[in-house]
C-alpha cells in the first residue's frame, strides 16, 4: 500500500506542477573546496554560520608559525574534551617546541580523541560541526580536521514511563541514539546484531538505525524495510511516528501495524523472534515490526513471570479488550432492543435508574464516553500537579453529580468506568487507542440496529483484520493463517521449555531451544 500511494503521489506531482527539489537552497560556498588561507577560512565560516550565535570560533596556534581555527557549536559538544584533549596538547606542543626545529606536522597522534576525520569540502565540514564535532582548520592547508567531541546535556537512562513492569528490567531508552543502541548491545552480544545506519531528513539529518539479527530475521523482510526507508524524502524526522506512518502497509487502517517500546528488553525479545527495530535519534522509542494483533495484547512481563500467572493475566486482558470494545454497545443494544435478555430484577433496576433520564441510552452513552475520553486526555496534557484536581473534579462531576442531577443513570456510570478500566489493561497504548476509537462506531451501530449492529461491526472488523498485513505478515497470523507452533504463544503462553520454535513469521533457524531442556518434565523422565 505504502508503495502504491507514494508512486501515485509522485506521478500526480509531475503531471500537475513543476518539480521542486527537496530541501533548502544551500549557500554557494558549501559547494566549494576548503580554501587555503586563515582569512578565507574565517570569511567562509561566517558566511555559512551567519547569525548562528551558538557557533564558537576560536583561534589556536598550532606551532609558532602555523595558525589554526577551531569551530564548534556550544552546547552539543563536550567542552572538557576540547579543553583537555585538543587545546592542552596543542598548547603544550607549542611550549615544548624549540625555535630551531621545524614545526611538527599536525596529525591525529597529537590529539587524544578517538574519532578523527579529514574533510576537504565546506559542505562536509559544516555537516561535521552540526553533528557535534569540532572543526579544526589550519592556515595553509586544504584539509580540515573533524574531531568527534559529542556531548551536551541529554537525559540519562531512566525507568520507562509508559511501560512499567513489576518484574523485569527498569531501564528505558533515552533521546540519545547511541545510548539506545548501546542498551540493546548490552543485551545481545552477538556480531549478528546488525545496526544499519542511515540519515533521513534534509534539515534534521536524523540518524535512523535499522537493527535486526542477521541469522534470524528474514532477509527479504530486511530488504523490503531498507527499500521503504530509503524512499522517505522529508525535511525532518522528529519522532518514530513519522517513520511509522511513512512505511506502514495500510495507512488507512485504524489498527497499528508497528509497535513502539521504550524497553530494551522488549526490543531484544522481538529481534530474537525475527523482527526488526528502528531507532530514531532524539526519540526514546524504538519501532518494532512486523507485528500481529496478539502481540498488541502481550506485555514483556508475560515472559518474565511464571506461565500460570502470565496466562491468567493474558486471559484477563483478552476479556477486557472485548469489554473495552463492546460493553457500552452491548448495554445500549440490550436496554433499547433486547430487554428480554436480562434477568428480571436486573432489567427492573436498570429501568428504575433510567426512569428520570431525559436522553435515549445511546445519547447518554455517547455523553459519558466522550466526557471520559476528554477527562483522560486532560489528564495526559495537564501538568501533574493540576492533573490531580482534574481527576477529582471529573470523578465528582461525572460520577456523582451527573447521576444525582438525573442527567445520566448510575448503571451507565458503571459501564463507562468498566470500559475505561478495561481500555487501560491493553499493554500497547496505540492499540488501546484503536480500541477506544472503534468503540464509537460500534456504539452507533448498536444504537441503530441492536445486537445485529454489533455483529455487523464485529464482522467488519474481523474482515479488515484478516486481510491486513504488517510488513507482509498477516495481522492475525497464528490463528489465520493457522500455525500450530504459533498458537503456543497466542491464546495461552506456554512455559518457556515448550516454546522451542520461533514464530513462523521468520523463515530460517526456527528452533530457539534445545528440545529436551533440563528441568522440563519431559527431560526429567530420562533421569
Amino acid at each position, binding site marked *: 500500500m505504502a508503495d502504491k500511494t507514494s508512486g501515485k503521489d509522485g506521478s500526480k506531482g509531475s503531471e500537475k506542477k513543476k518539480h521542486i527539489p527537496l530541501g533548502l537552497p544551500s549557500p554557494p560556498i558549501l559547494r566549494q573546496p576548503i580554501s587555503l588561507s586563515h582569512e578565507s577560512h574565517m570569511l567562509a565560516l561566517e558566511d555559512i554560520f551567519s547569525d548562528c550565535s551558538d557557533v564558537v570560533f576560536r583561534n589556536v596556534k598550532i606551532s609558532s608559525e602555523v595558525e589554526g581555527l577551531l569551530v564548534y557549536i556550544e552546547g552539543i559538544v563536550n567542552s572538557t574534551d576540547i579543553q583537555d584533549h585538543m587545546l592542552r596538547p596543542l598548547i603544550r606542543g607549542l611550549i615544548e617546541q624549540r625555535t630551531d626545529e621545524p614545526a611538527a606536522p599536525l596529525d591525529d597522534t597529537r590529539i587524544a580523541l578517538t574519532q578523527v576525520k579529514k574533510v576537504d569540502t565546506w559542505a562536509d565540514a559544516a555537516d561535521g560541526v552540526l553533528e557535534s564535532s569540532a572543526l579544526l582548520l589550519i592556515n595553509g592547508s586544504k584539509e580540515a580536521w573533524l574531531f568527534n567531541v559529542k556531548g551536551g546535556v541529554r537525559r540519562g537512562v531512566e525507568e520507562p514511563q509508559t511501560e512499567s513492569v513489576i518484574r523485569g528490567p527498569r531501564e528505558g531508552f533515552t533521546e540519545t541514539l547511541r545510548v539506545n543502541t548501546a542498551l540493546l548491545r548490552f543485551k545481545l552480544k552477538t556480531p549478528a546484531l546488525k545496526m544499519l545506519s542511515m540519515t533521513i531528513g534534509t534539515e534534521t539529518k536524523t540518524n535512523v538505525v535499522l537493527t535486526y539479527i542477521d541469522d534470524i530475521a528474514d532477509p527479504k523482510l530486511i530488504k523490503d524495510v531498507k527499500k521503504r526507508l530509503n524512499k522517505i524524502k522529508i525535511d525532518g524526522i522528529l519522532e518514530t511516528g513519522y517513520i511509522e506512518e511513512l512505511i506502514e502497509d495500510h495507512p488507512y487502517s485504524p489498527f497499528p501495524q508497528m509497535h513502539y517500546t521504550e524497553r530494551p528488553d522488549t526490543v531484544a525479545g522481538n529481534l530474537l523472534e525475527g523482527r526488526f527495530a528502528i531507532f530514531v535519534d532524539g526519540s526514546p522509542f524504538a519501532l518494532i515490526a512486523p507485528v500481529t494483533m496478539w502481540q498488541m495484547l502481550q506485555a514483556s512481563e508475560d515472559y518474565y513471570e511464571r506461565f500460570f500467572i502470565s496466562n491468567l493475566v493474558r486471559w484477563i486482558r483478552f476479556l477486557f479488550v472485548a469489554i473495552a470494545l463492546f460493553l457500552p454497545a452491548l448495554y445500549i443494544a440490550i436496554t*433499547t432492543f433486547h430487554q428480554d435478555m436480562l434477568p428480571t430484577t436486573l432489567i427492573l433496576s436498570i429501568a*428504575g*435508574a*433510567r426512569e*428520570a433520564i431525559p436522553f435515549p441510552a445511546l445519547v447518554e452513552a455517547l455523553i459519558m464516553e466522550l466526557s471520559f475520553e476528554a477527562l483522560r486526555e486532560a489528564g495526559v496534557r495537564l501538568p501533574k500537579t493540576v492533573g490531580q484536581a482534574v481527576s477529582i473534579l471529573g470523578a465528582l462531576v461525572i460520577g456523582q453529580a451527573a447521576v444525582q442531577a438525573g442527567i445520566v443513570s*448510575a448503571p451507565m456510570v458503571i459501564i463507562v468506568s468498566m470500559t475505561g478500566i478495561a481500555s487501560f489493561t491493553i499493554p500497547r497504548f496505540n492499540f488501546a487507542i484503536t480500541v477506544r476509537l472503534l468503540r464509537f462506531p460500534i456504539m452507533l451501530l448498536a444504537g441503530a440496529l441492536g445486537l445485529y449492529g454489533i455483529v455487523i461491526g464485529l464482522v467488519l472488523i474481523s474482515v479488515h483484520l484478516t486481510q491486513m498485513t504488517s510488513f507482509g505478515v498477516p495481522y492475525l497470523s497464528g490463528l489465520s493463517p493457522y500455525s500450530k507452533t504459533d498458537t503456543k504463544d497466542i491464546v495461552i503462553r506456554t512455559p518457556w521449555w515448550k516454546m522451542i520454535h520461533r514464530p513462523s513469521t521468520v523463515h530460517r533457524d526456527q528452533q530457539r531451544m534445545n528440545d529436551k531442556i533440563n528441568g522440563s518434565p519431559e527431560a526429567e523422565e530420562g533421569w
Partner: protein
Amino acid sequence: MVLIHKRRAVAILLLCTIFISGCWDRKEINDIAFVIGLAIDKEKDNYRTSLQIALPGQSGSAGSEGGGGGTSGDKSWFMLSNTAKTLRGTSIEGQKALSRELYYAHRRTMLIGEELARDGVAPMLDLLTRYPLNRLSALPIVTRGSAYKVLDTDAPIEKFPSEMVRELCFLNMRKPRSLKTFTDAILSEGVDPFLPVASTADNVPSNWKDVKTNIKLDGIAIFKKDKLVGMIEKAPADALILAMGEANEPEVMVKAPRGNGDVFIKLNENNSSLHPHVANGKVTVTIKLYAKGVMVDNESNYGDLRDQEMMSLTQALHQKIEEDIKEGVRLIQKQYPADILGLGRSIHQQIPKEWKKIKDRWDDIYPDVKVIVEPHIIIENVGVINKPIGLQEEDIVHD
C-alpha cells in the same frame, strides 16, 4: 484507480443502509411496561386478564434517586385488569389504558383461575405460545378461586407476588411444569397434565393486627386434556410428586419403629422410574423409587440407631412411602381418573407393541391398572448425636 473508487462508493452505499433501515424496533427502556405477572379468569363469557406491571421508579433500587418520585403507595407494581371476549382482546384493552408498551418477556408465571381451567385452557394456549415475547418457560399455575386475588396479595417477602409463586413452584418441584411441558402433556398420549395449585393465605391468624395476605401452594390440579377435573390436597399431591421423582428434597414423617413419636427423614437424592408389564390384557406398573435419606429430626423417644435398628426404620419408611403413594395413585385412578403419572406413556415408550393394542381402551383400563410401589431408600446420615437430646437416659427406648 477506478476500481478503488467503485469499491469505495459501494462501501459508502452499504454503510448508508445501516442508517436508513435502523431503529425500527428500538424501544427505550422507559417506554416499556414490564408485565411481571398475569392472572386469567373467566367472567361470564368474557376473559378477565389482570396484568401485574412493575413500577421501576418505585422499586427502590439504589440508582433511582431523582427518578420516579411520587409517593403513591409503597408497592412496586400495579394491577391493570380488563375484560374482553378474547384473551388477545384483553391485552389490546389494557394497552389502551397504558402509556407504555406492554412487554411480556419478563412474565415468568401465569395464574389461571379455577373456573377458566374447568372450561378448558386450550383456546388461550395459542397466544401464549405463538407470540415470541410470551415465554414457553413461564410457569402456569391454577388458583383456588379467582386468579387475580392471588396475584393481588401482599406477599411481602418478594417484590412481586408473581415472583413469589414462581419461587414456590421451584421449592415444590425440581422441574416445575412450564407452559412447554404442560402443552406437551395435553398433546401426548398416555399422560394427563397437572399443574400446581396456589391459593391465598394470611401470614398470621386473621385476628392479629397487621395481617398481610400471602400465597401458598397447596396440592395439584388434575387435568383431563385441557380441562381441570379436580384438585388434590397437599399430602397426596406430595406423594405423587415424589412418585414422579420430581420432589425437591421432600421430608417424610415416619412413625418410630418403637416407642412413641415420629422421625423425619429428608430424601436428598430421589429418583423414580416406571416399569410397566402387560400380561393377558392385565396391566401392572411398578414404580421404583430410589432415594438417599437423612434423618433431620427425631421427635420420638426411640434411641437406638445401630445398623440392625436402622433396617427397621428403613422398613417403616418404605411402608410409609408406599402407603402414601398408593393413596395418591388411588385418588387419581378412581376419583378423576387422570393419568398424571404417565403410566400409559411408560407403556408406550417401553412396550409399544402392547400400547398399540390397548391405547384405544386406555381410559377404561387405566382405573384398574395395578400399581406396585417399590421404594429403595438408604438412610445415610442419622446426625451427629444418636439419641434424642432432650430426654433422660431412662426414657429412651432400647431393645
